[in-house]
């Protein structure tokens, strides 16, 4: 286990070193985050009303509600996309083959390569929230940070299985990320990102209740905006962990099968 963690850290170190050779992206992303936070603030000012606040299940203002939804989807996007993207980059740069003949297995290569992008996403979210709190009065003081952390870990466990499935799809079919398209597409309507699911027609509300993203979103808003603790978020957290218990092992089995299949068909490093 220690060896695996060290190997994962090697990839983080590699990506940090590569990122260090580019200077401007972080500054540009930070500026972009400021504009993004400002956009949510002014949209919220335009639409906010006492009636709207009444209708929101969590969050004191529409600004807080929508920004929390947005950063959560950014995080979810990373969980769904990062494995597939790191595999694609390694394959296209020609480093995949060189990595595969080392002592490190492909699952560890994927997890290791996902580490830095996740750290980057967390940093981006922190910058977003920092701007929002500093300039636009986002209620960061209300957050229960241990609960926020637990919700993010449970979300990562629940949805990275789909990311692994997408990586398996990429191995077999070379392009496309169906898990991302499907989950982000469906969840942009039924996940409660920018509006509460209660405004949806009954049949879409049923879909929303079957969608684990809805539970993760509710749990994150509860912890971040309402200061709810881990115990009071027990139900959505248990649902997410149960979901992870099914999807993660299944995705690992399917990924292993896909990897074996590409070694049979000789298409492992094909584009």
């Amino acid at each position, binding site marked *: 286990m220690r*060896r695996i963690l060290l*190997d994962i850290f*090697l990839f983080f170190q*590699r990506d940090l*070193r*590569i990122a260090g*050779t*580019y200077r401007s992206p972080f500054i540009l992303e930070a500026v972009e985050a400021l504009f993004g936070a400002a956009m949510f603030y002014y949209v919220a000012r335009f639409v906010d009303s006492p009636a709207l606040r009444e209708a929101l299940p969590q969050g004191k203002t529409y600004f807080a509600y929508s920004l929390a939804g947005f950063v959560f989807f950014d995080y979810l996007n990373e969980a769904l996309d990062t494995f597939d993207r790191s595999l694609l980059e390694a394959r296209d*740069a*020609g*480093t995949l*083959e*060189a*990595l*595969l*003949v*080392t*002592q*490190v*297995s492909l699952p560890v290569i994927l997890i290791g390569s996902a580490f830095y992008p996740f750290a980057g996403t967390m940093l981006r979210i922190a910058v977003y929230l920092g701007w929002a709190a500093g300039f636009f009065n986002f209620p960061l003081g209300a957050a229960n940070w241990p609960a926020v952390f637990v919700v993010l870990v449970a979300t990562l466990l629940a949805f990275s299985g789909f990311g692994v499935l997408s990586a398996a799809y990429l191995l*077999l*079919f070379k392009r496309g990320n169906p898990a991302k398209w499907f989950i982000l597409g469906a969840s942009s309507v039924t996940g409660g990102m920018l509006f509460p699911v209660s405004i949806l027609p009954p049949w879409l509300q049923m879909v929303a209740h079957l969608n684990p993203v809805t539970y993760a979103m509710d749990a994150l808003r509860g912890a971040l905006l309402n200061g709810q603790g881990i115990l009071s978020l027990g139900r959505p957290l248990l649902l997410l962990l149960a979901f992870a218990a099914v999807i993660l092992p299944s995705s690992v089995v399917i990924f292993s099968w*896909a990897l*074996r*299949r*590409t*070694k*049979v*068909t*000789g*298409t*492992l*490093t094909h584009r």
Partner: protein
Amino acid sequence: MSDPAIILDSLEKWFPPALSGWRAFLQPFTPPTTPALRGITLEVKQGEAVALLGANGAGKTTLLRILATLLLPTRGSALLAGHDTVRESAAVRQQIGYHAGSDLGFYSRLTGRQNLLFFGRLNHLSDEFSASRIQTLSERFGLLGVLDRQARALSSGTIQRFSLIRALLHQPKVLLLDEPTRSLDAIAAADFRHFLKMEMLAQKETSLLFASHTMQEIELIADRVAILDEGKLLAFDTPNALRARTLSSTLEEAFARLTGRKLYSGGESTPE
């Protein structure tokens, strides 16, 4: 007597046909119908250098990729340093140094040294050992001056030499090289051949299996030559024995006779 470094027993590899359009979705499930290797049986002794010689598509790269655990054989078995390439792939990877013959496989924003250290760590070498090997090998190949330049600023020949250093870094028991001098200039190629023959193979601790189209390279380095044609092993012997058996004056001529190809005066061979 020590065990052979490589044992191939009736090794076969078949690929599915390449599908396009909507049928590409069936590609991973398509049965293999195209033979790449057909019943290859051979042994490479410890400390021996064996060349794979064959026309394009003869199966040389497929064979090397099976030994590097990047492909699974369809039938038969491949043992490397006593380990099965399918069931004990991690143990096999510990024993091999693999060079795919391309100038890819390096992170363009990292320097040569950073790239090599990273791959050394992935092979679980200590930084001290890697640093010392990188220094020694870079000095040997005249790369000290470019060791701390980003890979994107290096020529393809230089990157290929770094790739060869990467294959040698962990002092593997078996070296698998696919056209190792393909992108090298004449001087660098000659130097690398000299290194393989006089410095590495002379110690009889490393075995070498390499694919090459350069007869001069094969003549210089190989103890034995495996001639492949359309996935079949046509002959496996020393260069002298191959020449004698085919009544040829050169290895090129022997190759042409064994594969039934016509040899032109320019040295190119084509099927009859």
